């Protein structure tokens, strides 16, 4: 083998050289401080990577399509729905089974009255989402 070992050093330390090449490489190493030093260096790096511990997933692994974390339409709709619920809660309307008649009543008030016509509550008409009127 002529010249320094270069890439063959990695192959040597990985046991990936053919036996003839390996013998030649070892011959060269015996008389070449430069290659011997580089072999030590390559070996050190290799050992560092090989010593890295196994990594456990943070969540159970599943086989589902990956979302690419762009704000999706669904996420937007969910956010809007959450905002709506928050608005209803702030306005004192409870989004439970008893909501129906109350909301319907408020929609009635809102849709049949001029703006700010409700003297009892300024909040109720303002908190009604437009979608309820459709």
């Amino acid at each position, binding site marked *: 083998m002529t010249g*320094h070992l*270069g*890439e*063959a*050093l*990695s*192959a040597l330390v*990985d046991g*990936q050289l053919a036996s003839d090449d390996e013998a030649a490489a070892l011959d060269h190493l015996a008389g070449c401080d*430069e290659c011997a*030093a*580089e072999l030590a*260096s*390559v070996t*050190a*790096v*290799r050992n*560092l*990577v*090989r*010593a*890295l*511990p*196994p*990594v*456990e*997933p*943070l*969540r*159970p*692994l*599943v*086989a*589902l*399509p*990956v979302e690419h974390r762009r704000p999706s339409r669904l996420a937007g709709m969910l956010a809007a729905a959450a905002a709506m619920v928050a608005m209803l809660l702030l306005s004192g309307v409870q989004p439970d089974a008893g909501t129906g008649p109350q909301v319907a009543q408020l929609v009635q008030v809102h849709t049949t009255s001029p703006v700010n016509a409700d003297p009892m509550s300024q909040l109720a008409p303002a908190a009604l989402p437009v979608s309820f009127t459709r």
Partner: protein
Amino acid sequence: MTDAEEQPVPDWEEVARTYGRFLYTVAYRLAGNHEDAQDLAQEVLLRVRRGLETYKPGSMEGWLSRITTNVFLDEVRRRRRRPQDALPDDPDRVVPPAPGADVALAEQTLPEDVQAAITALPDEFRVAVVLCDVAGQSYQEISESLGVPLGTVRSRIHRGRAILRESLARP
């Protein structure tokens, strides 16, 4: 072990149960963070579940490594087409050090530092090093997984290690 020819196409849940940690470790070392590793492992299992990857009876680790690499490189290419989330390690910007550079490694190197250095490698070198030193694949297996000649595998592994050595050297 039964006759290799009679092995059925593996069930994804069985793969996740038995090889989940191996798969995740390879994915994490390639991606460099949990979020991307989780996506990577999830996509690999999806391909297994849908039968999108032909199963060659033999080493399950080798098969999973190949799929993981393909998914990783697909994702890298996808991000390159979308500059707003391009990976920070554009290989064109990285100049490999001169071979034989005499650099001493820090005496105590933390796993996080090693991972950071791996993550900073150009993709081609990173894949080769991870397949070799994390997945434990032979050069021949890596050559088949990546569809590149054996000499290219050898070169990428060696140059990858040389760059790692530079990154990890004492400042």
